[in-house]
């Protein structure tokens, strides 16, 4: 790829990113999804369930909860990715972009960049809300930044899955109905909200070995340092392996689905 075409590819991806972010800014419902919904989640778990769930971490349940909400939110943020792409494919917008002499990567890259930025805003909102209700980092600034970075990386990996689903299904209703159901067992049957020891054994077997648990344990470890419930960095390496693996499988699938949109 020549320097010129690389520069154009960057320009094209940036224009699409700008377009996606402008739409996001101008549709109030999207802002509500991005900011209000995770805030409500944080408050609900903190005050409704929090008292009933004893956890052995410093600072109590709010400190246990927050990395869980962060991980879950990063996963759920990808719903918008699948839905937007399905709508664009359905309406023919993607076709029209493909008829222009733009870089083939622009639409998917622009989607990832815009949704990654949106996700970052959401994650920061949650940290701020968490601070207001008693959450505190216990592992320094590096740990705090590491937690945000890992959540972001995991969210982007799941965005690749969502891009594939959105482009493969190409129908908004289908994506709403079936495309994202997999997120619920993955996020709730994990260590996000309750310690795994409280689940029945057969469920634990799944929960212990699935990526969301690894990621959330790693987020917790980075936020709080060693605790009885997240006591070493193994989860971090496992998380990174999962993230790389998910991207390696689903990014090519998404690109293939994009080429086949017609």
């Amino acid at each position: 790829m020549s320097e010129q075409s690389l520069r154009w590819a960057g320009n094209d991806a940036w224009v699409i990113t700008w377009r996606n972010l402008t739409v996001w800014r101008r549709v109030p419902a999207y802002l509500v999804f991005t900011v209000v919904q995770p805030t409500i989640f944080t408050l609900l778990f903190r005050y409704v369930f929090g008292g009933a769930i004893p956890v052995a971490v410093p600072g109590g349940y709010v400190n246990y909860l927050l990395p869980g909400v962060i991980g879950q939110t990063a996963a759920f943020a990808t719903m918008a990715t699948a839905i937007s792409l399905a709508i664009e494919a359905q309406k023919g917008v993607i076709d029209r972009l493909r008829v222009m002499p733009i870089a083939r990567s622009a639409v998917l890259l622009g989607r990832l960049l815009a949704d990654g930025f949106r996700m970052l805003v959401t994650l920061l909102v949650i940290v701020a809300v968490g601070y207001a209700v008693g959450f505190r980092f216990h592992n320094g600034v590096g740990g705090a930044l590491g937690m945000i970075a890992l959540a972001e990386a995991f969210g982007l990996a799941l965005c690749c899955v969502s891009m594939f689903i959105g482009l493969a299904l190409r129908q908004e209703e289908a994506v709403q109905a079936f495309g994202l159901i997999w997120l619920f067992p993955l996020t709730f049957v994990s260590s996000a909200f309750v310690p795994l020891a409280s689940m029945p054994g057969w469920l634990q077997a799944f929960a212990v070995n699935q990526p969301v648990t690894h990621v959330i344990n790693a987020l917790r470890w980075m936020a709080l340092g060693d605790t009885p419930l997240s006591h070493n960095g193994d989860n971090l390496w496992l998380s990174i392996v999962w993230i790389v693996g998910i991207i390696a499988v689903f990014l090519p699938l998404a690109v293939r689905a994009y080429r086949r949109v017609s």
Partner: protein
Amino acid sequence: MSEAAIVVEGLTKTFAGRGRDARPVEALRGIDLSVRRGTVLGVLGPNGAGKTTAVRILTTLLQPTAGRATVEGHDVVRDAAAVRSVIGLAGQSTAIVDELSGRENLEMVGRLHHLGKPGAAARAGELLEQFDLVDAGERMAKTYSGGLLRRLDLAASLVAHPAVLFLDEPTTGLDPRSRLAMWDVIRNLVAGGTTLLLTTQYLDEADELADEIVVIDRGQVIAAGTSEELKGRIGGDVVEFVVPDGSRIAAAVDAVEPLGESRPTVESDSGLVSVRVGARGSEALVETVRRLDAAGISSVGLALRRPSLDDVFLALTGHAADDTSDSEGVSP
């Protein structure tokens, strides 16, 4: 062939079937066509004839199963990128983002065409002016009417001054006034020298806008020529009248059938009966009045007219242009 901006030879597209009785669908069964530079080709056919499939192949969105096509000398499969740099596409779906203003939409397209920010802004201004969108330009596109949206979309397809423009059913779904306005816009474009391939299911649209017309039915070209040539093919006049009382239509058809060269056709919702009477125009007209009167059938709007492209289509395919699935049910 250097005169031809678009050349299509033996173009075939077969889609794998879907569902349980998955028979392959032959959308295009070997079409040939050629469009001279600076002229307008109207591709005319009913829904499902293969028009959109042909446009999608020519605009590099679909790969043909067999055959070849070139646009401005570039092969649509092997030189797809070169094709994309010389074409524009507008049509049934729009590239317009609802949450951006008309101006922002055009600027975005300009930046995707690498005009640079100032270049894109200048071009957007020109197009808003040219398409009479200056007032609407600052409003979000989601507030636009259907006609306004199509105009903006057409403007967007022209941002990079394409040598060849594809318009896929540009007026489908528009109200009559917006349709006429769209025709004016298209005429002006053509006057500027753009080569245009236009698909339509409206015969009057092809008649109005196209230099040459190809008629496509079920994936094949069944006729080609100028509008006059096509009309000449069936020659002869048509007697038309409307029977307001729906229950009397069948009786009316029986009454006038002996006058026609073929069985009269009926538009069942309007009650319009058409009889092709060859060269015996006025004589047949008088005879029609007599026969309807004798049968006690009241009619309105009795007229004798020259054949339209509608008649051509009927003569070529045996069914009306806007009527695919019910083609057997047209004549009672």
